[in-house]
């Protein structure tokens, strides 16, 4: 019997399945839908760009502005980016530029940069001069969160970018839209923390790979829709049996990870990544915006400025060490795996500081140097396996 004429019934994906398998970037149906409805999409390069100021802009009719995190999952080579940015810059910066040069971000209407680190901030000029996005702005983020003056500078920078949207497109967020957006984003953070609780409890309900895929979905969808999906996904997770058969519980720290391949490598050895301190993970969702204040822009800036800091900040080392220790203890980990993308000075040295402190407390640590592209699988796997043996798991 020919199968060609058989009508296949398509079973709609569950919320969890959808989030776990959502395509990235331009193939993402939510982004496609957003654009089809007249919305604009703006990428941000790091978690010091307050998404709420973008999402709160409401265009005419259904047009809205969607912030998405710039990522380069799937980038396998950086030949063109290497010519400009040079090989001694981190492969994440080169990969995002390569994706841009390859047209993978053709759906973007613009980008909002921050002066995050050497590598990313220097790719700004190439976006400006080679890719000519319609909208391209930079937030000068202080190197310290130490004083009120530093916060006021950051606030002014954030507000300047917010106003630039208005100047460019004639649309500005107002108090009402900002407050509404704050509520959406706070709810998003609450739900993600609930997801973390499901990961890090005694009976984890999902793997680190799954958690990262869900997080990546969240980077690329309207947050209110994501919230609905995540609520449903959380119920599915609660109902499923716990993850079993793993050898050790680990915390993953270091450079941002937006490609599940590395987590898959780690979990392929029998480790289970039950929590993390990544800026694409836990740090991204830690800390709420104050909903009671009369100045929502200030409240938003305050949250982003005061959240768990990135090691590009020259202060906050003690707090970052305390944070990784707290999360390691809460999740009852057997060890901590630090990783950094080659040429990332910030995480290279931060990892040394944090791991030294953890080892002093008797928490075993492993440090991996890697490229952004998931190559070199054998070496990484061997290192993780050796670590597992070291911690007797």
């Amino acid at each position, binding site marked *: 019997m020919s199968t060609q004429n058989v009508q296949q019934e398509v079973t709609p994906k569950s919320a969890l399945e959808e989030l776990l398998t959502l395509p990235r970037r331009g193939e993402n149906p939510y982004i496609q839908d957003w654009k089809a409805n007249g919305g604009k999409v703006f990428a941000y390069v790091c978690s010091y760009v307050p998404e709420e100021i973008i999402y709160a802009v409401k265009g005419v009719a259904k047009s809205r502005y969607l912030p998405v995190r710039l990522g380069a999952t799937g980038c396998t080579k950086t030949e063109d980016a290497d*010519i*400009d*940015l*040079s090989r*001694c*810059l*981190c492969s994440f910066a080169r990969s995002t530029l390569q994706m841009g040069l390859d047209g993978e971000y053709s759906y973007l209407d613009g980008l909002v940069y921050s*002066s995050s*680190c*050497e*590598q990313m*901030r*220097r*790719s*700004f*000029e190439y976006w400006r*001069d080679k890719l000519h996005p319609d909208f391209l702005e*930079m937030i*000068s983020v*202080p*190197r*310290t969160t*130490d*004083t009120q*003056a*530093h916060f006021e*500078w950051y606030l002014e920078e954030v507000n300047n970018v917010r106003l630039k949207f208005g100047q460019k497109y004639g649309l500005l967020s107002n108090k009402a839209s900002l407050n509404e957006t704050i509520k959406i984003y706070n709810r998003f953070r609450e739900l993600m923390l609930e997801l973390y609780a499901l990961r890090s409890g005694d009976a984890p309900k999902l793997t680190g790979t799954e958690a990262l895929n869900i997080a990546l979905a969240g980077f690329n969808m309207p947050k209110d829709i994501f919230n609905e999906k995540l609520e449903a996904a959380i119920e599915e997770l609660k109902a499923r049996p716990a993850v079993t058969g793993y050898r050790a519980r680990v915390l993953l720290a270091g450079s941002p990870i937006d490609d599940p391949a590395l987590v898959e490598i780690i979990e392929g050895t029998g480790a289970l990544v039950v929590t993390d301190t990544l800026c694409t993970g836990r740090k991204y969702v830690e800390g709420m915006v104050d909903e009671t204040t009369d100045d929502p822009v200030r409240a938003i800036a305050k949250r982003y400025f005061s959240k768990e800091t990135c*090691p*590009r900040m*020259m*202060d906050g*080392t*003690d707090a970052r060490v305390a944070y990784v220790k707290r999360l390691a203890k809460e999740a009852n980990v057997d060890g901590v795996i630090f990783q*950094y993308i*080659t*040429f990332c*000075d*910030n995480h*290279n*040295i*931060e*990892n*040394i*500081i944090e791991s030294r402190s953890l080892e002093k407390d008797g928490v075993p640590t492993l*440090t991996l*140097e890697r490229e952004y592209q998931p190559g070199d699988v054998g070496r990484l796997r061997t290192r993780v396996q050796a670590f597992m043996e070291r911690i007797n798991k």
Partner: protein
Amino acid sequence: MANRELEKYEFLQRLDVTCDLFAGMCSHGWFTPKELFANIDTLFDDIVKEHGHDREYLKSVVDNVHPELAEALLKPKHDMDVVRFGKALKGYTTALNDHLAAGKPVVYSFPTLTSEIWYAMDIVPLHFELLSGLLSGVYITGVEAEADAAAKEGFGDHICGFTKGPIKSIEMGLLPKPDILCKNGSPCDASNLNYVYAADLHNCPLLVLDSPYYSDDRALEYYTENIKEMIVRVEKITGHKMDEDRLRHHVDISNRQLKYYYAIQDLRKEKPCPDPGTLRFLDFGSLAICGHSEKVVDYCKGRYDRVKARVDKGETFLPAGKKEIRTLWSWGWIANMFYLPDWLEEQFGSTYMECQLSYMPGDVVGYVDTTNIETMINGLAWRSLNFCMHKTAMSYSDIWVNDFVSIAQAYKADVALFGGNRACKHAWSLSKILSDVLLEKCDIPSFIWEHDVCDKRYTSHKATKAMLTEFFNSIA
């Protein structure tokens, strides 16, 4: 009188000896290493008698000096400048010795904020990354052992040599433990992390002067506030108070010093260039001790007088018959190979225009108004924002590119050398833009190569010379 306190820390002891070697070896009229070593005992006798160094230690230090650097510095085109620099730096090391001996606070400060503010608070700061550079350039062993110790700890190859050199030096007892660290947010992550690491390890305050991404009035106001806050905190932590008259005294010195600095920059536009390039690292050293003493002014004035005299007499220091190739150093001098500009002058007639590690545009930076404390701090903030490396690193690539196009045009450069420190990410990210623009707008080719600024093992001197020989022969 011996600087005994410095002898507790080998890096400082060696720095102190370096001053005396510079001043001593170049002031006797010995113009070649052969003459120097024929009279080495005389040199040792003089130095031991005047400065009290241990003779065996002195000998071990001399044995470790890069012979090519010694040869270069002894040349008449350099010698008296080296003497004056040695004396100026000795003034600093002696002040540092007395400071440490008196139990005053140990402060490490990044030199892009010149040190007048510290001197005015009766503090003599240390600049450990510059020290790392100086030791790499003068001594064969440089800071390689320290860099290896850092690598063993897990610090990547991609961490700048200016950072890797000092990052373990305090732990290794080569430098004193800090009481305060002070750093601006520029030029780069690695330089910041040196201070972050030290603050964490030694549990001491790190005061951050945030480098804004712009150079406008708003940025200046913000940065000035950072400096004022820093002063308040230093006063609180150390009990050392800002003294307006002392600040004025040191700012007055630095203003006079910079008058000559800017004037020499202008004279480099003459053809042939009247200023030998190997002295550029000493010039940067004079900025590190900016405003310290009249000896620094003497150094800068002496430099200016010699350069001006060449212009007035129509003289050149290039070998007879060598056609000048006016060379823009679009990254900067290489710490582990200070003598390279001299070698290029002798071999190819390549004269050193400007570089990112020493260029300070006088028309932009100007002088600090000494009217009152407010004007002085404001002026020092402006100078810092426009300090070499700070200005070009902390913002959009356009600043570096535009500055160097302007320099290439104003100085009528023929070629550009981008000898990039392998770890200098903010520089490498624009190396292609810069070289393309220099070719397009100034019709000058660039030679781009990679080295480790403090570690000669990465790109050997031999390899560097071979590459540059090929380049200069290809454009001949």
